């Protein structure tokens, strides 16, 4: 089905995986134990990320997007969690690195966390927080100061604005810019951004997104952009991966997915975007089915209980990712749209949303 793409893993002939990518995630599985129960946060997820590319990871709470981000940086707690699969960065298998080697690797791979306020030590001064990574890396004091100043300037702040102050004295937007500065100070070539703009105001969000885009372009930075906001993901991403209950259900070029989503779950996500258009008066109470308990996922397709297209096949056989006519890959037995099931011709009739 995808003979033109080089097969790089045992994941099967997944044509969306590339040999020359900087980051390769293969068959990643993460499960957490809670008493007798096992919670599969991530199940058999494979993707890659090229230098300078932005991959958006979208999905609901509990879909595993944050866990994937943490697993990439080897931040999943060793206690109570089982990791399977392989993560390689520039041909280094991260699982085999020693603590010291991983510490060096973190100069190149950084993370921006979801909640900047709680990811900062409230008793430290923000200047020290921004320089924290450099301190851990054993950077000399002068170099540290220079890099902190540069990172602060990159995010539109200055030492004079932050000197002597602590996190609580800053707004959410400023804290998020400080978190970006902390990551940038190390000079990484890849950043996992976990909901970096989720709690920001519109104009601040626009600043931070533009800022990330400028830095990305200037430094040829690869970004994994984890977000629940599909409008933001649309703006920043080259490719998008959609996760549902730990499984990747759709991956492909952002243009293809937003133009014509193949998986019904993706469709539902796109329909849920709060569009600033009051003419779309939203009828109350049309909320969908409740999310299924994740401790005991349904048989077959995990989305089937919320899916309007589900049938008996979906209950029996778990669908695997396969190429869609629109260009992306989706794991669905009954993908959208109905038309154009032919394998080569792209559905030209599909119009971009106006």
């Amino acid at each position, binding site marked *: 089905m995808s003979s033109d793409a080089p097969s790089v893993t045992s994941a099967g002939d997944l044509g969306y995986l590339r040999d020359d990518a900087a980051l390769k995630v293969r068959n990643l599985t993460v499960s957490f134990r809670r008493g007798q129960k096992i919670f599969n946060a991530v199940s058999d997820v494979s993707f890659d990320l090229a230098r300078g590319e932005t991959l958006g990871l979208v999905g609901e709470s509990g879909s595993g997007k944050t866990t994937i981000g943490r697993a990439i940086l080897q931040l999943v707690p060793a206690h109570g969690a089982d990791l399977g699969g392989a993560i390689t960065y520039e041909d280094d298998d991260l699982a085999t690195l020693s603590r010291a080697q991983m510490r060096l690797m973190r100069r190149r791979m950084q993370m921006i966390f979801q*909640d900047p306020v709680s990811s900062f030590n409230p008793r430290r001064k923000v200047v020290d927080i921004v320089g924290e990574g450099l301190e851990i890396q054993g950077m000399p004091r002068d170099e540290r100061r220079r890099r902190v100043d540069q990172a602060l300037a990159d995010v539109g702040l200055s030492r004079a604005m932050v000197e002597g102050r602590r996190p609580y004295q800053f707004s959410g937007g400023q804290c998020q810019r400080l978190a970006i500065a902390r990551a940038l100070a190390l000079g990484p070539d890849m950043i996992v951004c976990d909901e970096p703009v989720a709690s920001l105001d519109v104009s601040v969000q626009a600043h931070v997104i533009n800022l990330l885009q400028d830095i990305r372009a200037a430094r040829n930075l690869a970004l994994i952009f984890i977000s629940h906001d599909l409008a933001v993901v*649309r703006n920043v991403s080259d490719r998008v991966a959609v996760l549902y209950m730990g499984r990747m259900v759709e991956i492909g070029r952002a243009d293809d997915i937003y133009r014509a989503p193949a998986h019904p779950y993706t469709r539902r996500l796109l329909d849920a975007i709060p569009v600033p258009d009051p003419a779309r008066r939203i009828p109350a109470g049309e909320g969908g089915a409740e999310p*299924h308990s994740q401790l005991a996922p349904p048989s077959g397709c995990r989305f089937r209980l919320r899916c309007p297209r589900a049938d008996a096949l979906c209950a029996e056989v778990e669908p695997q990712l396969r190429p869609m006519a629109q260009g992306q890959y989706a794991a669905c037995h009954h993908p959208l749209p109905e038309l154009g099931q032919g394998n080569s011709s792209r559905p030209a009739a599909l119009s971009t949303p106006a």
Partner: protein
Amino acid sequence: MTVPSDIHPLLAVENLSCAVPGPAGAMRILTDVSFTLPHATALGIVGESGAGKSMLVKTIMDIAPSRAAVTGAVRLDGTALQSLDTRTRRTTLGRRVGMVFQNPMTSLNPFVRVGRQVEEASRKHLGLDRRAAREKAIALLRAVGIPDAAECYHGFPHQFSGGMKQRIMIATALACDPELLIADEATTALDATVQKDILDLLQTLQQRRRMSMILVTHNLGVVAGRTDEVIVMYGGRLVEHAPTERLFASPRHRYTAALLSAMPRIDQPAHTRLATIPGQPPSLAHPEPGCPFAPRCPAAIDACRAAMPPMTVSADGRHRFACHVPLDAGISGDASVRQPEAANV
């Protein structure tokens, strides 16, 4: 603009100001905010960080910091809350107004099982016995979309994701069947489908119970299509207040227009540069004279920097804005065209 009527609006806020002492002098968090909220109406309050939207609802709820100097009046169903003693005021608000806070991580007590937290208010204010409160709590947990509600009743907050915690918070706020539900950035950290489901839920409850609702949010997309009216705040001031459709179709205040154009849109290609608002939000400690948006406003004239623009009210009384150089009223939103609607103010 408030037209006196025989029925009191559910909520009337009159010249509300709030200042908090800070290291650099008093911070004027709120300045002279006035509006009314009729019964069974959904109101959106939007603005940036520091605009005062959270502080506005906290002041209404009488949970502003004790060192805050509050002036002005808040009337709930005609009763001036400031005239009540603290205990009566708190009981009234706790019973009749439900509130969902911004951060579920810090709003739930980590040592108390979630069921107990959901039923706390109904036991206190409605006098339900343990069993009735428990049944109600489980029903509420189910209603807000918690799977395995009966089991989760016994869970602790750390066992839930952020989205689930926020659902628990909403169940807690609904425990007393409030007449007014205030959701302060309640869906900000949630996923789109969860956010949609929760907003749907809030909207259903609001309409079915003929309850009023205030949605405080930075996301204009959240209030579009779900609220009857929108208030835009900036620098502690109310800068625009209009029926939702009209605010989006023809904003009059320059700040509202700037906010609308800063939103990322799904119909734009990747890496489209977003419109930003230059400059910084105003200093609340040292407010400049004049319009707080003037230093960032592309259309500011000398008058804007000299004096705070007075509130202009459209001919039909439904659209208010504080701007010296307002944008043109669009054809659809023109006050004179909409004149007949003025009857139902």
